[in-house]
């Protein structure tokens, strides 16, 4: 893919040969560790410019430090999230909601959706999530002493949880996972096809719920009122697409990386298995170590930010996996210490767009690890196999073959 030229206002000495897409360890790599690979971003200046750092090959500023990412993400007025990341794949400009809305419109939609994913609400959803985890793991245990933890557990667990949240049955789970794969990891031909398919699906679902109300998320959305008015079709689509895409890949990737870590670190595995009370704290450390996404903002005005001459329209990348290895914020950032106490990690972002699904995601990981460790004895990566990891738009892991024979 052609790299766009560096804009004139970027001083040449601030350009670094670094990219979440093309740097070493970012392409699919057997036994890779893409999160550790990006920690090298801290070897240089705290802010630099990368020529090729988005899915569509655009250059971005790269903010490496937690303190600076917090400043960028908390200042939605200067650093907008409206960049139509999904709809631009289709050559359109509608925002996913609330992610790509700026305040004050953002707050209105955020308040509409927050109660559906609040800590209180997640506690209500928890028993069903746990039941699903147990069902999947019991099936794995019954079928032998080895499995593909991504295909047999992480994906069906994460995707069925959010399908249930959306009010959809999971008999089309494989189809949805396929759409997600094409959208997030596909090539230039696959992505628009997947995006169109997802839009058509969400539009159709909304139409069905308008026709006949049931007790589910989409019915809530089509019936909701914001400032005394029903949502427009584009707004309903913006919300539906966001929730659908957000749940497809991220939690599964996190669980996959976590299980891969535990498979390679039997002492840590044993610690959590024998003292499951430690799992919630350990999960925060695993969220720090293996977050899957980078957040991108667009400058709404010229600003000299911590020495970087950022100009209106520039992209500014706040990669969670880079912030989470910041030595100024975390002691020994490259050591994964499941007993780490001070841990204000960036996995769910900072500022008004903090991941709306964070409470559900966190509990899914905790429950997934609890039930996995309670039912599966000491497990390792199966000899002769190698999980394939990748960087990019959403960091991922495939074919995690575990063995406990």
């Amino acid at each position: 893919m052609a790299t766009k030229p560096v804009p004139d206002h970027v001083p040449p000495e601030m350009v670094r040969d670094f990219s979440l897409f093309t740097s070493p360890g970012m392409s699919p790599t057997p036994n890779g560790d893409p999160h550790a690979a990006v920690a090298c971003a801290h070897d240089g200046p705290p802010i630099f410019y990368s020529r090729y750092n988005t899915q569509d090959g655009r250059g971005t500023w790269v903010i490496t430090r937690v303190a600076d990412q917090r400043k960028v993400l908390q200042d939605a007025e200067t650093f907008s999230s409206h960049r139509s990341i999904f709809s631009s794949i289709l050559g359109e400009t509608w925002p996913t909601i609330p992610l790509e809305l700026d305040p004050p419109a953002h707050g209105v939609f955020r308040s509409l959706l927050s109660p559906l994913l609040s800590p209180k609400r997640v506690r209500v959803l928890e028993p069903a999530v746990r039941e699903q985890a147990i069902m999947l793991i019991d099936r794995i245990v019954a079928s032998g002493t080895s499995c593909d933890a991504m295909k047999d557990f992480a994906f069906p667990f994460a995707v069925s949880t959010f399908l249930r949240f959306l009010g959809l049955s999971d008999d089309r789970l494989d189809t949805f996972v396929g759409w997600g794969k094409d959208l997030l990891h596909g090539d230039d031909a696959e992505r628009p096809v997947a995006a169109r398919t997802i839009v058509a699906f969400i539009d159709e679902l909304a139409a069905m719920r308008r026709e006949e109300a049931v007790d589910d998320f989409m019915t809530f959305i089509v019936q909701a009122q914001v400032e005394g008015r029903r949502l427009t079709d584009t707004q309903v689509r913006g919300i539906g697409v966001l929730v659908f895409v957000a749940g497809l890949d991220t939690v599964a990737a996190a669980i996959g990386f976590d299980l891969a870590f535990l498979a390679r670190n039997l002492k840590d595995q044993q610690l959590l298995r024998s003292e499951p009370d430690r799992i919630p704290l350990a999960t925060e450390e695993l969220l720090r170590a293996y977050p899957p996404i980078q957040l991108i903002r667009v400058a709404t005005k010229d600003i000299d930010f911590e020495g970087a001459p950022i100009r209106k329209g520039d992209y500014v990348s706040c990669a969670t996996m880079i912030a989470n290895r910041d030595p100024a914020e975390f002691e020994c950032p490259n050591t994964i210490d499941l007993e780490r106490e001070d841990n204000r990690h960036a996995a769910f972002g900072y500022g008004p767009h903090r991941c709306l699904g964070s409470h559900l995601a966190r509990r899914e990981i905790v429950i997934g690890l609890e039930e996995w460790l309670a039912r599966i004895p000491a497990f390792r990566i199966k000899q002769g196999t190698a999980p394939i990891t990748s960087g990019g738009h959403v960091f991922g892991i495939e074919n995690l073959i575990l063995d406990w024979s």
Partner: protein
Amino acid sequence: MRIIVQNAKCQGHARCAAQAPEIFKLDDEGYILPGDIEVAEGEELSASRGARSCPERALKLDRTPAARVE
């Protein structure tokens, strides 16, 4: 000890409430309720842990003894 709550900075991470649910109370959306928090004796450790866990730095510790209003 007192915890100064900067509501404008709270983004609903709920890390404080996970540390000490009896000290940090959230609203229905999951954001912290307004008003500074007087920490009872014996709860200082979990209160300061909760405050230090805030990713947004919305919670500040004030260790000076509470001013007495006569």
